């Protein structure tokens, strides 16, 4: 694309624009005369608001008095008229197309090698709604939307401090997606900002269509089971992270923000924790840690104990399990794998299917797994109970669900093949993997290991807000 300014001849310039756009029908070119100069206003159909463009641009521009030349026209518009608050300059066709495709109207004039752009966005977008994945009882019920500007305004509304900086970047050689780097300049470590900028510089994909396109560039190179870059769809949660000195990246078209650095303990914290009394918040937090371990380990420990270490069961439980398992035709590991994989398939079907069909899937799966499989003797009732309990516990910490799903199966195979010894070996490998996760010098397992006693007040327990408010915590405390 032409990088050396626009063509001075209006006709040639319009021809060039049509050539570059391939005659695309949504590129609108309106020719008119203003102040005696031939001009054209370019915009993209559906991206601009018709009423705004008429009121704020056409009406004032067509009323401009006679000008000596196009330069005088531009000077008049810039100095005498306030057509829009967002007015970037256009000096090449690359910028011109990026702006009109972002909802700007661009004015070009005969004899000029530049254009004037006006922000008159008016495309259809989803309104602010309650987030679907991060439930909250006592806090705000607003979530991010697909429009980056609305998301930026939602953050700004909650953090009115001038220390909050929002830097706009454009990434994706074809998509030209707007990204917004958000941080509190007085809180964020300078080194972290530099390293994140360097990471984003390496982003050379053709399109940025979801947070998944930028996360690999923000995370470390080595294999990590858990994500060291988190996401949130709640502006209030994001604001709390920014205040703690983290950096967020908003992506246009995605109702999620990526937050760096992310710690393991954050998966167990919700904004509701701070709305409850500390004793209840501590209880809920411990419940989540227990649920996380149960979700991963329960099926494997069941298989390991029943198959290899029955001496660990008391006699009543032992007899009960023997009675149930002797009727089942498959081995315990096969049964467990069958139940877990069936659950995963049903879940995946429920997520992807249209909503009316999804209900039918729930009924069929309930009947098949809950009733028919047990009655036919394919799966024993205790095993089904263990599987259901494990899956249910996994839903307590939804952020870690992908990891829990895979680890649950891996632990089950290890426990089924090698008993508790297998579970121990895999636990070692997983523990070391978690402990080795570290991006930008922030260990994923902080503040548990490396141990930071100051961090325990809001991780292992949840101290009262009065005590927490004086903490002045920033994530830099965990830097190693």
């Amino acid at each position, binding site marked *: 694309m032409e990088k050396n300014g626009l063509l001075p001849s209006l006709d040639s310039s319009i021809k060039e624009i049509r050539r570059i756009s391939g005659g695309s029908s949504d590129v609108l070119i309106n020719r008119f005369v203003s102040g005696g100069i031939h001009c054209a206003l370019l915009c993209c159909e559906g991206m601009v608001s018709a009423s705004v463009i008429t009121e704020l641009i056409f009406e004032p521009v067509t009323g401009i008095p006679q000008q000596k030349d196009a330069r005088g026209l531009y000077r008049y518009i810039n100095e005498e008229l306030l057509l829009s608050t967002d007015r970037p300059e256009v000096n090449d066709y690359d910028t011109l197309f990026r702006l009109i495709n972002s909802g700007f109207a661009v004015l070009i004039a005969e004899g000029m090698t530049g254009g004037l752009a006006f922000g008159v966005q008016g495309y259809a977008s989803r309104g602010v709604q309650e987030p679907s994945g991060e439930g909250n009882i006592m806090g705000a019920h607003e979530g991010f939307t697909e429009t980056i500007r609305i998301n930026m305004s939602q953050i700004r509304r909650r953090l009115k401090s001038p220390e909050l900086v929002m830097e706009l970047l454009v990434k994706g050689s074809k998509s030209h997606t707007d990204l917004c780097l958000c941080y509190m300049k007085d809180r964020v470590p300078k080194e972290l900002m530099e390293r994140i900028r360097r990471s984003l510089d390496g982003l050379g994909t053709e399109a940025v269509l979801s947070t998944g396109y930028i996360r690999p560039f923000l995370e470390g190179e080595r294999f990590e089971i858990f994500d060291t870059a988190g996401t949130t769809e709640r502006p209030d949660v994001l604001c709390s992270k920014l205040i703690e000195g983290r950096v967020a990246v908003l992506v246009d078209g995605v109702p999620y923000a990526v937050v760096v650095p992310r710690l393991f303990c954050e998966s167990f914290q919700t904004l509701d924790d701070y709305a409850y009394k500390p004793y209840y918040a501590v209880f809920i937090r411990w419940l989540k840690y227990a649920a996380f371990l149960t979700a991963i380990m329960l099926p494997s420990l069941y298989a390991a*104990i029943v198959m*290899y*270490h029955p*001496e*660990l069961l*008391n006699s009543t439980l032992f007899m009960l399990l023997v009675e149930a398992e002797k009727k089942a035709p498959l081995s315990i590991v096969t049964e467990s794998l069958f139940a877990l994989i069936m659950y995963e398939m049903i879940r995946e079907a429920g997520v992807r299917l249209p909503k009316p069909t999804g209900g039918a899937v729930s009924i069929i799966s309930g009947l098949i797994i809950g009733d028919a499989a047990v009655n036919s003797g394919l799966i024993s009732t205790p095993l089904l109970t263990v599987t259901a309990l494990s899956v249910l516990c996994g839903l307590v910490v939804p952020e870690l669900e992908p990891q829990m799903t895979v680890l649950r199966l891996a632990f089950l195979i290890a426990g089924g*093949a*090698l*008993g*508790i*010894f*297998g*579970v*121990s*070996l*895999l*636990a*070692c*490998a997983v*523990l*070391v*993997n*978690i*402990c*080795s996760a570290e991006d930008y010098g922030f*260990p994923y*397992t902080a503040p*548990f*290991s*490396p*141990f930071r006693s100051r961090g325990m007040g809001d991780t292992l327990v949840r101290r009262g807000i009065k005590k927490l408010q004086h903490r002045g915590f920033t994530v830099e405390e965990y830097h*190693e």
Partner: protein
Amino acid sequence: MNSISKGQFCALLLISDMFTLFSLRGAVSLGNVSGISAGIALQFLVMLVFVCKGGELKRWAKAFYLVYSVFCGGVVFAEFLRTCDIISISHEEGNGLWGRLITAVLTAVVCLYCARAGLRAAARGAVIVGAAGALFIAADLLSALAGGETANITVPHSRGAFFEVIRGFAASGSLGSFAVFSYMVKDRASSAAWYFGTRAVLSAAVLFTALAETGRISGITEYPVITAVQLSQPFEAQRIDSVFLLLFSVAAVFSAALQVITGAHLMSGLFPQTGRFGYTSVLLMMLAAAFIFYGNDLAVVRACAAAAALLFAPVGAKISAVSDSG
């Protein structure tokens, strides 16, 4: 490699020592407790001299500690394989030679993964394992206090103090790692005090538990600490052996991984061309050593090796311009 914190360093070394203590063989008595305590005290004094000299090793000392880490790693694997039956490591392949081979290979693979993740990752993991282990030891100690008998706590009849000190010396698997990595810890003298102090307390706690539970029968049990755990059940209706099996296996992996990390670190210093194969070659040497040691009582050899490791630390230390102060 960057520095690690005092707590992480101590946790990693202590897990290794706990594994050695768990697989302690022979009768337990008050003499044994005092022997181990005396051994730890002596080790502390010598290592204090070492850390005060700067904590960095000369080339010949590095070569010695490489051999020592291979020896210790081999001992860890040999002891682990020997205790397989006692702590009920069982799987589909049964418990014969084939079963043990599978156990060794799987442990080695996980150990290699842990080692390759690096000292910092292993040290961070050790803090979490250490916290869980401390809870277990506390539960075991309390149950031993409730169920144990004071009459079990005996003094030895036939063995002298010197023998017990020798045993105490042998019950240490991480002297080499301490000597090699102590320079990475910011507060070296204090971390030495922490490490040896905590090790003395933990050793005494574990041995008293074993003594209270198995004092009279410790002479006929091969592994008194493991037997004590199996006997001391804090809950009437529920056995907790599985927790010990978990802890024992994890301690074995971390213990072996520490030796692999130490060996690979020294190897990369002595032979830089080994590169990333250092971990694998050290591990293979350890496995080979384990098969040689398997079935032999190495208490005296281990004590001599530990004594040599202790002696070579201050002798083989480079004189640093800035001695340790923290």
